[in-house]
């Protein structure tokens, strides 16, 4: 199959969990944002001339991506909602392996990214007694 949008992402601190997907690495996202990232600066010399700098990699501008997701956490994949929320919180501060929702569902061995959670929001219950949560996370690509 070709790369296409799936209804989930894969996110785990264990690489094999996403290259040979285990069910618990799947997360449902209800919002998704894909943010391109480059490193440039435009400075002015004292004569007013612009000096544009871009960080290159292999002769071309270094382009990375960040992602922002709002994950929907509920009882699924044989885990309770609380078990899943605990696991997403435990990923904070670790190097993670990641398949964007835009990936080939028949071939998980390639196309994954190495990322880290650079920002994580609070665990939000849909209503006060709900066992269903949402949580916002921001992922930054470590290496292209």
């Amino acid at each position, binding site marked *: 199959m070709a790369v296409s949008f799936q209804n989930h992402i894969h996110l785990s601190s264990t690489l094999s969990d996403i290259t040979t997907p285990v069910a618990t690495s799947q997360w449902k996202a209800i919002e998704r944002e894909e943010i391109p990232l480059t*490193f440039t600066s435009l400075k002015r*010399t*004292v*004569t007013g001339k612009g*000096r544009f700098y871009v960080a290159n990699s292999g002769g071309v501008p270094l382009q990375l991506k960040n992602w922002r997701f709002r994950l929907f956490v509920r009882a699924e994949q044989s885990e309770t909602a609380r078990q899943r929320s605990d696991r997403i919180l435990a990923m904070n501060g670790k190097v993670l392996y990641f398949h964007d929702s835009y990936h080939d569902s028949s071939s998980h061995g390639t196309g994954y990214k190495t990322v880290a959670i650079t920002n994580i929001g609070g665990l939000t219950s849909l209503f006060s007694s709900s066992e269903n949560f949402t949580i916002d996370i921001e992922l930054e690509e470590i290496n292209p």
Partner: protein
Amino acid sequence: MITQAESGLSVGDYNDLVSGNYPYKYKVLARKWNIGTPTELRTNSFGPTEGGKTKLFSAYYNGSTWGFAIGAPAGSFRVNTAIPPHVIWDSANSVFQRLYVDTSTGALKYANRAAGSNLSISALADAGTYNFPSGNQQTLYTDNESYTPSGPAYTSTPAIAGGWTLADLFNPANPNPTSFYRGNSFSPATAVVQTTFSSAVSNCYKVKITSRDWTGLSGTKYSSRMIRNFDIETTTDAVNWVTALQVRKETNWGPKESRYYDIPLGNYRGVRLKIKNTNGSANIEIGKVQFVTRTSTTVNSVEYLAGTSWDYVFYAYRDFSKNSWNLRYLRRTGSMGSTFTDYNTGIYFQRPILSMDGCYNSTANEHVLAINMVETGSVVYKAEGAKAVPYVSQKSSTYTIKFSPQASGNPLVPSWLNPVDIVNPASSYKNREGVGINFINGMYMLTLRSYDANEYNLGTTVVSADNGTSQVFYSGYTSYKLYTSKDGVFWSNGYKIPTVYIGNLGVTPSIGWGAKPFLVGNEIQAHFHANFVDNKGYNSIIGFKFASSVMTGTYLTPTDITDEILEYSVDKSEFFSSSITLDNTSGAFTNHAVINDSSVAYLEHYHGIQRGPGDDVYILIGKTLVESISKIKSLDSSLVSITSRDLLALATDYTISEDAYYANSQRVFYDNYSDVTDSGYGGLAHTAKHKGALTAENGFLQSPDNVQCIAFSTFATDFRDFLVENWTYSHQGDKYGFIFKALDPKNYFFFEIEDIATANTVTCKLYYKRKNSYTLLNTWASVSLSDTQYRRYYSCFAGRFLFMTGTDFVLPGSDIRSFDLIPINSSSFYPDIGSIGFEITNVNVSEDTYTDENGVPATLPPGQVM
């Protein structure tokens, strides 16, 4: 950003720039000091069969051609010298003159040749000889303690007991005698041990007596059995004995301790010890008795030459008996062959001179001498077992001394030592040698051969051997360093001149000696003789150039860096300095021809206005020398930061050491004699009192009447560098002065000033105190001092003593007496180093006897002894 106040001009903003509204502008140009590649000279006439390798070399450039002199054992163009020869140029007569000290005679030899011929290398016979008035050569003696007596005829009275033989006592080959002699209660009253030899032992001048080894035994007993009161007798015919020395009260012997006893120099057939019955013990034990002989060699007295101009030739005269180096110079007024007149600069060094060079500044009419020497460095403690053992390191020091003629001409007046570079501690891999100096385009330029490495990071030098193979030596990173000075006093840091590579070798040679810089065209060039044989089979004279466009006034094509400046600031508060941040987006400064780590560059700062499109007017407001270049690269920027300072900063700021270990052995500190403890014994924290109840009060050192007081400084350890300042209230009968070369409170030199019974008249004497007894070495004629305030100031510098008197706590100008401290005529013992201190003996005089209108207190002195 630069401000109006800083630049003297205002600088427009960006809107001004784009509108063309006559904005103020500025630009910065970067230029490079041109450090060129070496140029190899004359490889075809100095073959290995013509005297072999040598380091001794001198070159002089007269404005159009070079003159060389080479010291080597033999050969047509070389001279027989053990120190570098010297070449100077006589512009009045248009001749080069070659000077050197002949190895065989120690005399100065000279010859000249007119300019215009091949001056580099060709035969040049000696034309004249000059004998130094202090003597060309001296005899150097070397102790020899290992002679073997032949034909023993050992005897003793009374007889020996304890299984011991006299042969052990007189046999120096016995390394650890445990001999035992029983004195039989001294009957007869004097015990005698003696030996005679079948032939005379030549040149004996000491007797060495060593105690036996009682290590691990009861030391007190064996120490007391060592001889105490005895006579040393000698014989020249093995029949008649003559008393050579009477020794009394020798005590406190340690195991295997050797003591030396002077006897008249002679050829002896035997030695005898007559031990008195006052020895303190009936049992006598001696380890070993030996003659000490000496062998003599003839050495040349003049160790270095440096002609600063045609008519002034400086030289370093070494006095081996005093282990000092006297700086002197010759002056002549006529052409070659005219009589030299010898002058003493009054400067004496206590440390070996390693190299010396000089130059003449005709504008200021001053001669500047550069001296590279060994000095006592810092004290380093090393752990040996459980003990911390002190070692005195050596430092490699380079100084300049400026000589200015007096109004009446001679003699020249020397300045004090001006430090150029001091490496402390120095080692085989971190050192300086081979100084060269010249005055070029209004600036003194000095070069030093440099070794820079550390014990963990040794540099390598590849040297070509005679057979053409290469050898690698671990000797530190070798290079030349260039130092500059506007006045010959304050010196810049050393700029490393890139390592010289010799073209046809492709390796760094072991460069031999100093390289005197000269202005050649628009370049600064220096020549040296490389100590190697190249692949053509010849020794080489190598020239290299490190020309500076700043110094020569020649402009190389500049690089305009204005368009790359992101931040620009200048400071003109004291001297002109600037800080510039350059954009390196394009990578132009990553390996820039001018702005790079290995280049010496300077910046030209222009400020001005734009009168119209393309019509800029700039004024050069300053030139700054680049001192640091920092490259700063981050993910989104690449910057180069440059700091630079005005060239004049070189003359106003200097560093006397590039090494963090530098320790100044001159003035360190002093006691102010202010007793903050209020106990009468405070205020003397750095004064080690040995004798006399010295106390401090209100800034005054109080000494008791009619008691000799002795104290030492806890700071100073070296003789050459020391400075004593001591204001003294004194009156008739007082004796005071300073101690130097003190090994302990019983052994030192003492320069004494005594206010004798005639008012305002003092006598100065030099004593050598050894084993607690004073020997008068020199007495100077009494001098009358015009001042009546009885205040004395004295200092000592490089072996010269200055004594002044004044009316207040300011230096006077009227009464300055100068004494040469070097007539220390002790041929047998002359310590190099030692502490300093002072002696005071204050007579008991009522205050009423003073005539001092200021009411001098009966205390001594408000002094500062460091």
